[in-house]
């Protein structure tokens, strides 16, 4: 146990040391172009970070909603016969929560692609 711990400790420390050695020993000749986030030789056209449309994330969220729903259906279908009505009640409760999420997203206009 201790040996394993020591191995992790030594190699972990080695990693940290190597990262910082680079910073300590390497030559440093900074200039403004080098410091800029995108170093490509030419001055950049616009400043800072602009807001990006989040439509793609919206699609990802909704995909998660429906995808996870289906994933949970499979094990449910397998045990349905043994569990009987309890399984039905549980699944309806689950679907109810998902439907509320779906209706909420719909009414909020998450399905409209235009901004």
């Amino acid at each position: 146990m201790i040996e394993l711990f020591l191995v992790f400790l030594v190699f972990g420390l080695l990693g940290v040391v190597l990262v910082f050695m680079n910073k300590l020993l390497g030559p440093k000749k900074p200039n403004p172009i080098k410091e800029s986030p995108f170093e490509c030789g030419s001055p950049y056209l616009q400043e800072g970070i602009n807001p990006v449309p989040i439509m793609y994330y919206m699609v990802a969220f909704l995909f998660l909603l429906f995808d996870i729903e289906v994933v949970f259906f499979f094990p449910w279908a397998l045990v349905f016969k043994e569990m009987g009505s309890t399984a039905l009640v549980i699944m309806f409760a689950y679907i109810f929560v998902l439907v509320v999420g779906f209706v909420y997203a719909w009414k909020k206009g998450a399905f409209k692609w235009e901004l």
Partner: protein
Amino acid sequence: MNSFWALSPLLLVVLAALVVLLLEVFLKKETKDYLAYLSSLFLAGCGIILMIFWDKNYSYFDGNFLLDNLALVFSLLLTLATILVILISIKYISLQGANYGEYYALLLFALSGMLIMVSSQSLLIIFLGLEILSISSYSLAGLRRENPESSEAAIKYFLLGSFATAFLVYGLALMYGSTHSLEISSIIRFLTTGTHLNLMLLVGLGLIIIGFAFKIALVPFHMWTPDVYQGSPTPVTAFFSVGPKVVGFAVLLRIFHFYWETAFHTQTLMTALWVISVLTMVVGNLIALRQTNVKRILAYSSIAHAGYLLIALIAQDPTSLIFYLAVYLFMNIGAFTAVTSLGRKGKEYVELNDYSGIGFKYPWIGATFAVFLFSLAGFPPTGGFLAKFFVFASAVRKGFTPLVIIAVIASLISVFYYLRIIVTMYMKEPSPSMQILTRNPVLFSVLFLCLYGVLQLGIYPGNVLGFIRQAVAAMPLL
């Protein structure tokens, strides 16, 4: 007793959240006041159910979800805190550009996560509750979307919070690896029968402590606290300063209350908690001295209070821990209510200079705020004094005198910055430009309710202490 009814408080809260979400999208009203009243109504119902369940010990999911008296006391505290926070946000969210109906739904979801945490016996389910709480909290912190500070708070809270969660999960994995169970009772049973010291278990416990230390803002895991408290909408800050702290200590209490009596009781963890407690009190109070933003002062004060609460955990005195949490709920929500009230459309007064002369300009806000600050500093006859007194007394009885001496010195330091606010409120000329919205009856009733709570717990704590003692006596062992 195994009964489906054990789930009813939780289901009621989730149902309330879903109803609020649906009403928000279908009715599309300009003012969201009705949503706040509706959610408070649901929560009041939940509180009544919790009171009916007293002494009934309902459980469900094979005992994994157990509403024992301890869970009931914590659930009641959390429900009360959420109701108060909902009521003080009614005017605030429309004034400060966070007027979304989802606000209340998120608060209710966070509450449901906390209810799961305090009443669950399995660490994995506790982790699930923690995630529900955290994800709602991240969005609540960033709810003032036009405000860059609020977005900063959300992103900081999200990054550091998920980092802390990773620690917690790693701890749980190590714990499972060494004890083959994640149920608190079987872990304790394993520890009592264990024969040799297990390094993996110790590291796991340490990582679990770190995970929760992030949530309850113990030094050195407190870095996110001031920024998040400053950037979040003020009622949400009140919620953050009370809710996660109460559940964090509830879970730590459940894990550690019996830990000290087991065969694995090592000095290492005790020393670690001792050092964390000292650091939390000293660092929290010292940094608070230099702050000029009232929300940041209160943030550091809440860090310091986490240190005092940890003393109760170290001294193994659950009664005074819960009593301290109850008092802390009233005084901290009260103080943040006073801060919330000082604002008008698009403007919040949170700098110390803004508070000059408030005591005379708005006598009720000034006077109640002063009482809450006295209570936070620990002056009699407020609840803050008794809470500190009980904690320190039981720590001295258990032989932690050096710790108590440091705690007393730390709370003496804290008097300075609490009094600084009061001095600014009463001994400086009011600035003529300061103008706030005073027609806010709901907020004022919350202010007076908190005042009542602080004084009741400070002057006549017998009833509440009796309830807490009963709850602690019924703590399930093994």
